[in-house]
């Protein structure tokens, strides 16, 4: 395959970026999107140029490192996958492909296609955990948990923290990310004691980081590589309202 790439290049956080054009030749259809970029980078290096920086690690859709906006869509237009799982057989010979970083105020660009998503870590740090000390747990089977509740918690817990939901949202809202963690922990008995505190703290931190609010467009759900449902956002809103009221009336 022969492709034309329009790639966002930016030297560092403080410099201005721009789109540059690259020709990608002899790309095998079986290659993954990131392998296509490897091939292009190899050619750039051998011609004395500066290779394109992008985040990636596991290359099997689970670590959440890869973060490209491909033709305007985070992780590309195929549903329920990450960029590293996208394969070139989904493109046609002669295509022009725009490749940009995940864009959001709370995800500043570090270089080229690499962004800083440490704001997500700080949201988890604010309350996305169960406060249990190592060694203090009771026997795992002493607390039966309904299979449905465990499955629901699992579905929410599959979030890989990639940030596609934020990049797809016109408000750069992190509501899907926050609601997934809230759902995971709040739907299990282990997470209940800290439920209200968790919701209040995580939402407060999300606002502090500069993420926008949800206006119910659900682009987040459409691009989520783990198919996390936007209905979790309404549930988070309900939990937040309850927690605020409980806090107010004491």
């Amino acid at each position, binding site marked *: 395959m022969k492709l034309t790439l329009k790639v966002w290049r930016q030297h560092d956080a403080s410099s201005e970026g721009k789109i540059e054009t690259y020709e990608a030749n002899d790309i095998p259809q079986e290659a993954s999107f990131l392998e296509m970029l490897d091939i292009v980078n190899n050619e750039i290096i*051998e011609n004395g140029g500066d290779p394109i920086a992008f985040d990636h690690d596991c290359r099997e859709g689970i*670590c959440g490192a890869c973060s490209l906006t491909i033709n305007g869509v985070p992780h590309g237009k195929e549903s329920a996958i990450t960029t590293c799982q996208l394969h070139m057989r989904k493109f046609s010979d002669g295509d022009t492909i725009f490749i940009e970083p995940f864009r959001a105020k709370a995800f500043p660009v570090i270089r080229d296609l690499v962004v800083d998503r440490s704001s997500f870590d700080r949201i988890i740090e604010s309350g996305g955990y169960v406060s249990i000390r190592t060694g203090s747990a009771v026997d795992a089977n002493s607390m039966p*948990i309904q299979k449905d509740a465990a499955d629901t918690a699992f579905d929410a817990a599959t979030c890989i923290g990639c940030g596609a939901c934020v990049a797809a949202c016109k408000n750069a809202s992190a509501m899907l990310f926050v609601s997934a963690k809230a759902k995971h922990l709040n739907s299990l008995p282990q997470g209940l004691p800290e439920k209200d505190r968790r919701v209040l703290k995580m939402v407060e931190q999300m606002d502090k980081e500069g993420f926008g609010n949800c206006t119910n467009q659900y682009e987040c759900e459409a691009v989520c590589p783990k198919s996390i449902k936007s209905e979790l956002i309404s549930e988070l809103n309900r939990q937040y309202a309850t927690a605020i009221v409980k806090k107010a009336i004491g």
Partner: protein
Amino acid sequence: MTQKKSDTPDAKIPSGPIEAKWAKHKMDSALINPANRRKYTVIVVGSGLAGGSAAATLSELGYKVKCFCYQDSPRRAHSIAAQGGINAAKNYQNDGDSVNRLFYDTIKGGDFRSREANVYRLAEVSENIIDQCVAQGVPFAREYGGLLDNRSFGGAQVKRTFYARGQTGQQLLLGAYQALQKEISAGGIEMYSRSEMLDLVVINGHAKGIVVRDMVSGEISSHAADCVILATGGYSNVFFLSTNAKGCNVMSAYRAHKRGAYFSNPCYTQIHPTCIPVSGDYQSKLTLMSESLRNDGRIWVPKNSQDIGKPAHQIAEANRDYYLERKYPSFGNLAPRDIASRSAKEVCDAGLGVGNGGLGVYLDFADSIQRFGKDVISSRYGNLFQMYEKITGEDPYSQPMRIYPAVHYTMGGLWVDYNLMSNVPGLHVLGEANFSDHGANRLGASALMQGLADGYFVISATLPNYLVEETPGSISTDMPEFKEAEERVRDQINRLVSINGNRSVDSFHRELGLLVWDKCGMARNEDGLKEALEKIPAIREEFWENVCVPGDSGNMNQELEKAGRVADFIDFAELLCNDALHREESCGGHFREEYQFTKDDPEVSSGYTNEGEAKRRDEDFAYVAAWNRKEDGTLNLKKEWLEFENVKLATRTYK
């Protein structure tokens, strides 16, 4: 067998019966009172299951922890990619499991090349891990009654594997990550993401700090501590193509080795039998399909070469060779990994492989789909089937998967004693980065168990034994050893960016990987290993003359990061091949073609084992090889002879 004398440092294995060793050791271990713990600084390198859980636990106890990872977030460590599950001797299934049985299975699975006391402790602690993770909110699979579900894994005849669909590693890592974030929030941990350890600082013979490169700004900085914990994973990426994440590397462990730490058993590398086959030379990594698939999938190849190239459904049942079920009737498709991998290689070498290039075997779910229905199979393996479909474009519900072995895990690692401390005092090594628990072959679902055992439960009990002898806070980064280490690191970086050669870092890595896979992969022999040892220096020489690292070192430079790692992989490959050459026996993941059972052996004629199975030589090789690298780079072999007091050394058979 007569017990021989080891020349490695004392492994500090407690005396007494094996069931009582860990309890005794905990009782005999030093304690540091809570008010004094905060005076000690502990460096943890790596934030996966071992590092993340250790950092969180030590911070809970009151130590000051500095944790480093190369990823942009500790949540992305490669433990996240583990699919199938985690073993624990809970015996919730009432199928005869016990700590003793998990211990025995692990020793046998490791082909009698691991330390009994360490393995027994691992089996003991396994139960606490499940309790801990459930309490954190890890959503393990459950039965309708609300209790935890289990599945089977290779090398075991009981169901002891706890799982969270095909994403067990992810869920366990998020548990450890959340505990880590909790401690960051509480002020006990300083987290350094996008930071790569480039050197270990040794002061008066003790590990007292590290030198780190900030991967965003390029800044080099020193960090002092009272001890250093490495939890930096394995070295599978020496083969270039492996199932490891692209960033996984041997740098921290290898640089500790250069500062004096013994590297043990590097030749024990695990080739996982069920990975998606290689499809072309552009390929950047291989993808694992969980071993759990072998619970319901049947592995086969055509019996006759005239069926090669036909679609699977056109090959009659009678013309299929379900070779694992045929050769290992008791374990069938759940034969351990080393055995399943070698069997796949055997049939492919015999020209019966399927798919492109004949390097593949079928993993077929047709029978299970017929028995249980598509929905049940999908609920068990849905995400794995989807992953397969995305990569290959083929639908595993309607045609068998094609799989082939790939490098996946490395049992070898830095030598540690029972306290998980290396021969360099103060340097502790956890998880895949140490050598201690899996012998020559790791059983499925045991990596997660070991990482969490080391991090949550072992190191917190053993670390005070070292710390109590040290004066906290006595080390400062102004000491000359830090300046020297920084200078070494800067020199190497400057050298790499100034070569300006014609070849990319990746091209060297691929060349090295192909050579090591070819000569030191699934099967090894003396001639091949000697050939590799002749060729590696030539690769190194060209690398240092002709590698191209564009840009400079004062900002994010991904080629520079890779170049440092590949430079170490080249040196490490020599260590790997030397170890494989010296170990003149076959055991577990190390298969030397010269040492296999033939039809003339009594074990074969009696039907106990098969022709072509690995042949150990206990009398000469029942030891842990601990390689000491001298100042001038030459290697010196130390031996820790293994003592088997509870398990009888036997030829491993899964028939």
